[in-house]
């Protein structure tokens, strides 16, 4: 069945429909990972977006039971050059097409994804729509340009209630703004006693859980769309060791008085070099962010920049020296992407352990 991808600037790409049939709009973004489409489409941070895969062959190794980053996908649409109908991999349980159908997500294949990428690179992220209708492109484009995008993604993807993944180690509260399973996986792998809370949890509720540390998860959209979360973090900052990832990083910055801005087209992929300023070492990181902490807003907040993107200087890591808090804009949990930054979870847990020790001494004294 014929499908079209229409952009707000009037661009029209004709392709084939796959997955669910239907019209869906969203912010069109591209991601450059050559593997990891299953993780991408189930990463809650992509909620509300039409995701363009720059690699042309998607679905080659099928969809398996294990590689989901959330219990269900939240992307609004999937844009590929070709989707594989006969995947091959020992873990493959279904095709990409079957998955998208099951979750009512429209896909479009056969489009010039490189053209879309170049367009987005040039003009910045655009609003777009996957449609199987025959409505003229100009009409749809005009409608896209005048219709605001959704802003409630975090509430759509966050857990509705508190739940725990018991472990024998440190008790970590994971505030779920759209947390990837990968984060939970890294914590449980390290034996943590994890309590996952909704995004709108209050400081008081967290205190009742008596965590040893708090992890601010990744999540979709503009950090300024969740002001109550910023307020909660402000209240907890300094009281508990904090580690922010991606949206969590932006929220930590905002809670510390810094500012965030929307990037032209963001960083999405598994090949982004990040320089750790203290050591001069560069790490290849997995990234997925359309917003960033504004460099000029750092001054006077007590925050220190620890990591920057090698290519464009974007702030990729922050530290609040007095308040036992640090954060990274990228994804140490990988999934998809390189495992090079997994050590950050160890650093977090060391910080948690130190803080606990200090507390014990303080009590003893």
């Amino acid at each position, binding site marked *: 069945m014929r499908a079209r991808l229409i952009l707000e600037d009037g661009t029209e790409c004709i392709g084939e429909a796959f997955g669910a049939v239907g019209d869906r709009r969203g912010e069109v973004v591209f991601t450059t990972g050559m593997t990891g489409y299953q993780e991408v489409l189930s990463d809650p941070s992509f909620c509300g977006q039409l995701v363009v895969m720059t690699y042309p062959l998607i679905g080659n190794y099928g969809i398996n039971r294990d590689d989901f980053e959330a219990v269900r996908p939240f992307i609004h649409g999937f844009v590929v050059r070709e989707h594989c109908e006969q995947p091959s991999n020992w873990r493959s349980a279904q095709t990409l097409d079957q998955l998208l159908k099951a979750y009512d997500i429209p896909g479009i294949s056969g489009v010039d994804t490189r053209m879309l990428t170049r367009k987005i690179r040039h003009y910045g992220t655009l609003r777009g729509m996957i449609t199987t209708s025959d409505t003229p492109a100009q009409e749809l484009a005009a409608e896209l340009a005048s219709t605001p995008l959704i802003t409630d993604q975090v509430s759509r993807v966050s857990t509705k209630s508190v739940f725990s993944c018991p472990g024998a180690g440190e008790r970590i509260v994971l505030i779920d703004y759209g947390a990837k399973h990968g984060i939970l996986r890294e914590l449980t792998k390290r034996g943590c006693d994890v309590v996952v809370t909704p995004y709108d949890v209050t400081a008081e509720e967290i205190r009742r859980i008596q965590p040893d540390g708090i992890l601010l998860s990744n999540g979709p959209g503009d950090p300024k769309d969740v002001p109550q979360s910023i307020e909660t973090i402000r209240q907890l900052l300094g009281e508990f060791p904090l580690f922010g990832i991606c949206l969590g990083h932006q929220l930590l910055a905002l809670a510390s008085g810094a500012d965030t801005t929307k990037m032209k087209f963001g960083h999405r992929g598994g090949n982004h070099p990040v320089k750790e300023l203290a050591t001069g070492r560069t790490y290849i990181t997995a990234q997925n962010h359309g917003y960033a902490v504004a460099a000029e807003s750092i001054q006077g907040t007590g925050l220190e920049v620890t990591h920057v993107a090698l290519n464009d200087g974007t702030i990729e890591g922050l530290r609040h020296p007095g308040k036992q808090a640090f954060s990274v804009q990228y994804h140490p949990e990988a999934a998809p992407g390189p*495992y090079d930054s997994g050590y950050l979870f160890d650093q977090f847990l060391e910080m948690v352990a130190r803080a606990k020790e200090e507390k014990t001494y303080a009590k003893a004294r």
Partner: protein
Amino acid sequence: MPKLDNMKKILVIGSGPIVIGQAAEFDYAGTQACQALKEEGLEVVLINSNPATIMTDTNMADKVYIEPITPEFVARVIRQEKPDGLLPTLGGQTGLNMAVALAEAGVLEAENVKLLGTNLDSIKRAEDRELFRALMKELGEPVPESVIVSTVEEAVAFADEIGYPLIVRPAYTLGGTGGGICDSEESLREIVASGLKYSPISQCLIEQSIAGMKEIEYEVMRDASDNCIVVCNMENIDPVGVHTGDSIVVAPSQTLADREYQMLRSSALRIIRALGIEGGCNVQYALDPHSFQYYVIEVNPRVSRSSALASKATGYPIAKMAAKIAIGYTLDELKNPVTGQTYACFEPTIDYVVSKIPRWPFDKFQSANRKLGTQMKATGEVMAIGRTFEESIMKAIRSLEIGCYHLELKGADKIAEADLRQRLRTADDERLFLIAEALRRGIGIGEIHDLTKIDLFFLHKFARIVAFETELRERELDLELLRRAKRLGFTDRKIGELAGRSEEEVRQLRKSGGIIPVFKMVDTCAAEFEAATPYYYSAYEQEDERTWTNKKRVIVLGSGPIRIGQGIEFDYATVHAVWALKEAGYEAIIINNNPETVSTDFNTSDRLYFEPLYIEDVMNIIDQEKPEGVIVQFGGQTAINLADKLAARGVRILGTSLENIDAAENREKFEALLRKLDLAQPPGKTVTSVAEAIGAAESIGFPVLVRPSYVLGGRAMEIVYNQAELTAYMEQAVKVNPDHPVLIDRYMLGTEAEVDAICDGEHVLIPGIMEHIERAGVHSGDSIAVYPPQSLSAEIKRELIEMTTKLARALQIKGLLNIQFVIYQNRPYVIEVNPRSSRTVPFLSKVTGIPMANIATKAILGHSIIEQGFEPGYHPEEQMVSVKVPVFSFTKLRRVDITLGPEMKSTGEVMGREQTLAKALYKGLLAAGMNIPTHGTLLVTVADKDKAEALEIVKRFHQLGFKLMATEGTADCLKQAGLAVTRVQKLSEGTPNLLDVIRTGEANIVLNTLTRGKAPERDGFRIRREAVENGAVCLTSLDTATALLHVLETITFSTEAMPQQRIGRAVVAQ
């Protein structure tokens, strides 16, 4: 960290001659390295014995030594040049081995030279089997289990422990004789028992078999600050069991989930870190298709063929970055040269599919064993880029130039079903096509998978191509169907065949519907960043991203994959043509598909199209580029073969006109031309039937040289001595008919000479004349060429110059031409004229200092030789003697007869340059890999016709102190001449016979000339093969033997007892 400030002068080691397994990729790597080092203001000294390379151009390094790459010569260069550092990691295994040898000999320490890139310890840990296994164990990286056994029981015990299948490799047998795969105790017992017998030290290596697993490679880089990146990963379509150089490969991996990808990526980074490599490294894995279990197969602590492929596949210049890292830079301070904005510390991501298919020499070596296994056999490879897998692989097929323009092999439909299944199971060079054939016959994908172990993903893709054929056959060809066909990489020609239309009709329909390819950029980053690399591929997509200038454009056609008869020499000329075009103010555009070469470096031309050199693909580019014209004379037969088709489509061919190309290549026209110019040619005839051939040969007189018309590298050319041989040849070797005539020439046993010249249409510049050591009858590419000629009289040379000038003018040559002469009874005859760049252009350019391809290109553009500041006529001869010595890859190609003849067999060449011929030959032979024996035993077995001549040669060996061995006939002949000779038994006389003498290393030199009949069962063939496989010097031409003698006589001091003191008459005191 900025560059090391104590490094001022660096010695780079090249990889030497092109052999199977070590080809043009190291010219590409070495050239990049030299450029990268020079950019940093370092003084670069280069040693490489291969004159056909760009890297040995004197502008590539500050000092270029074209000398043998042996510890003695490299040490000599080190003492002379006193470099601060040595960079060996870009010269392949040769470079690495040399670094180890020099370090172990203490030369580096004594001369205070720092080893750059990878330290000695790392090289050893990567290369030494035991050290490597120990390191992998330490890192927790799995390697296949193995054990060395000397009894069958030990082998069985090992099998009980780890299970089957197992691979048995007897120790120290060549080519794995006596080994095999076993899947039961019974077969294990049998194979080990025989393997132990074959092994001279009675040992076998028993290894866990990983055959059939996915083979995955990672190209990794690391700098001194421990920053590590993966440039690219690749997946072999052929599972483990076929050498990666012989495998069809795709990039990036297609069937790995992110977990598998990252698991192996992390492993590769652990390994490069543990080895402490500063530069590039390649890690090969076997991955179980049914679990996360993987094994490390091999690590190459240097840039390799795979890294050249990865560089071209992604745009990321690995060798260049490796060179910068070696002198102290870190990845995060180096800019990614593709984008110019972002940094080299980044992992390329691509948005297309890359396919590589090897190019094998079996078209030339009909009798060779075509089975693919652990010994690489390909001479070259092609790469193609597409937006779908199907498009990518179909482009690669078109690039191979094996007469296929589709996933289809002519004659495959005739193969018996059982043979087909067998050939799917044991891979050979045609398996890709046989899979398609099996699918066409309705053999199920499941069964094909069971036979080939090729991943279902790829088989489904092939099946999609085959299924689409049916669709094209059955459905009406509309624009929608056509568009889908083009996106799957079908050619207009094949679509036409299937849809019952002509190719032209399909093209018209396509164009009328706006179905024309757009061109996309290779930019390392999937368009995330702006890039300025002019590196493009075609795709049937929406947006074209080229930018245009107002400059005049000229397209140069490259020479495609490296094969016997068309080697790196043509890439050399192509690159020079591109540079000359740029100098002359044109936009130089290149079309080529060989990932190993300098011509496909995106820095070389103003625009690089990585595309098949197939007419449709070339026309797609020309249609939009609208060049001033196309230059075809540098790309060998590949480019020349496209000339008529291009001209027929209205494309202007620059340089020598098509009519004149034809006048030189068409037999009849050429004969007429020679008659008109009154130039002599060996008498000959063109025949179209067997009967005609016999008549022609009788009128010309035996021996005659027979060959099919229009051939490459003397394919299927033979000298026949009588009618029986002629009949056999005509009936078996060629398919003669009016469309495929056969040429029969008088074979003149004389000296061969060769001339390369440049003509601007009027004036002719002859940089030099080369004389061949081997007499006429040995292919010029396999002969040792000497410059300047040592035995030709001034009169003969004058005649050659005159003949060349006449021919060049008569053919209105614009550009290069090459003429082969035979001097017979003191008179030169023209054998053939090639109106294009030849194999000897780089050699002659280097030894004479005349930039031939450059001058020729400018002549093509209309600048006369005089205008360019060169003097027409014969360039004054140089004082130094230079020889070009061919290099063969016979050890890699089993069952190939090594005897020299009219068919070309060499894969590469080296140069020796010295004050005298003997010294130059010494260097040449040494550089070619000959282990020149100064004493020992000569085993002689020659054909009757050669006995008299051979006797004189044998006498001289005897005088040098060589012991003699011979078989009956030859031994009698030598005895009669008064030489002491040991008789050895012929094969038919039982054991021990002459094969045993060779096997045990008793014979150091084997002199064997060809007796008739080429069937491998002939004794001569077995003798020659045995010599090759045991590393004895095997001489099959009496001329080569004489040349070697000349060298030996020069380098050997005779040892003679002092003359007796004369005793005077007794004097008595008076």
